[in-house]
């Protein structure tokens, strides 16, 4: 059976991983068709800025005009969550891409060559890993000035050391194998041995971790936005919407759930996005597990 067919069958066989695929495909569709689902009002300059309907602070309940209601400052929640899906994919995929590139480069170089180079790179990762992730990210965003770009840079800085570590460990294991020795004996350069022989046999755990991490990165980006250290005010971003809702989590006395829509709806979008990636990551881990019989 070919690899792709095997993967597809494994993915669809397990109901949980099927669920993960459905959730992620759903979000991809939302992101692609955002202009159709939530059309930008005419005369609105930037599609990623949520249109607002007045300046009153009190959230308004769902109505014909605002399907999910409006949040603090009369930002339309429906428009925000739909276009926020694009921001979530943007942050998650860009950060994971850059982190993978840095992690694979440094990790494989450290693992393959060993010695002083390995020591230096690994001690640097040690320093980065001693900082609690979110706090280091917060500090970096504060230094760079709050913006979506700073958030992505901060999350990249926080996330790369664990990838460098993981890939280094796997390369260390693979480099002792006979086929590496054989390829070196045939005169292949170090770069060729790493790229053609060592990496293809060592990269799977890293890819699994990456797919599991996309959700975590979007969650961290939301947390930073929630703290007011993310995109500029009004930018379509789930963390920002929960941040608007911060003062409206509990309604007035006697009706504590009065403003439920302001915090619940963006919260549910974040929840399902992260859940989808986690389920998908679990499925990839199961598929790439070599102990799994290929029947």
């Amino acid at each position, binding site marked *: 059976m070919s690899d792709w067919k095997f993967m597809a069958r494994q993915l669809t066989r397990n109901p949980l991983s099927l669920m993960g695929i459905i959730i992620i495909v759903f979000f991809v569709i939302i992101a692609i068709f955002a202009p159709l689902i939530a059309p930008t009002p005419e005369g609105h300059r930037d599609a990623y800025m949520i249109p607002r309907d007045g300046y009153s602070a009190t959230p308004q309940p769902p109505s014909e005009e605002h399907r999910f209601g409006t949040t603090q400052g009369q930002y339309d929640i429906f428009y925000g969550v739909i276009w926020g899906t694009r921001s979530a994919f943007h942050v998650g995929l860009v950060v994971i891409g850059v982190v993978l590139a840095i992690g694979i480069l440094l990790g494989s170089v450290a693992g393959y060559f060993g010695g002083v180079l390995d020591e230096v790179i690994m001690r640097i990762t040690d320093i980065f890993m001693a900082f609690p*992730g979110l*706090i280091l990210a917060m500090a970096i965003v504060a230094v760079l000035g709050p913006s979506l770009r700073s958030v992505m840079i901060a999350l990249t800085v926080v996330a790369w050391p664990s990838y460098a570590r993981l890939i280094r460990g796997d390369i260390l294991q693979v480099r002792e194998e006979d086929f590496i020795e054989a390829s070196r004996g045939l005169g292949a350069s170090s770069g060729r041995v790493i790229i053609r022989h060592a990496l293809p046999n060592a990269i799977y755990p890293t890819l699994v971790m990456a797919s599991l991490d996309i959700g975590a990165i979007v969650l961290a980006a939301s947390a930073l936005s*929630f703290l007011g250290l993310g995109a500029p005010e009004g930018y379509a971003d789930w963390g920002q919407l929960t941040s608007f809702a911060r003062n409206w989590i509990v309604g007035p006395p006697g009706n504590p759930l009065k403003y439920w829509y302001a915090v619940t709806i963006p919260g549910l979008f974040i929840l399902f996005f992260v859940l989808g990636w986690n389920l998908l990551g679990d499925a990839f881990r199961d598929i790439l597990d070599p102990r799994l019989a290929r029947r």
Partner: protein
Amino acid sequence: MIPVITVSGYLFAALANGVVITETIFTYKGIGWWAWQAAVNLDIASVLGFALFNAGLFVLVNLVVDILYTRVDPRVRLGGAIQ
């Protein structure tokens, strides 16, 4: 017992992350709230101080975790080679 101690060390770091969010939501004026205020007002020295403080705390907790191993399991010896 040893894995439990190891994980509780890491949990400590995770909780240090959570303290910022929790104290912000509930306006509990602890170190997390202070760090958030500093970050929002771009008081960079305070944010860096908070980050460094937490990193130091994490290193300290890991030291305690290592020492606890010897308490839990007498076979564990710190300090390298067997005499």
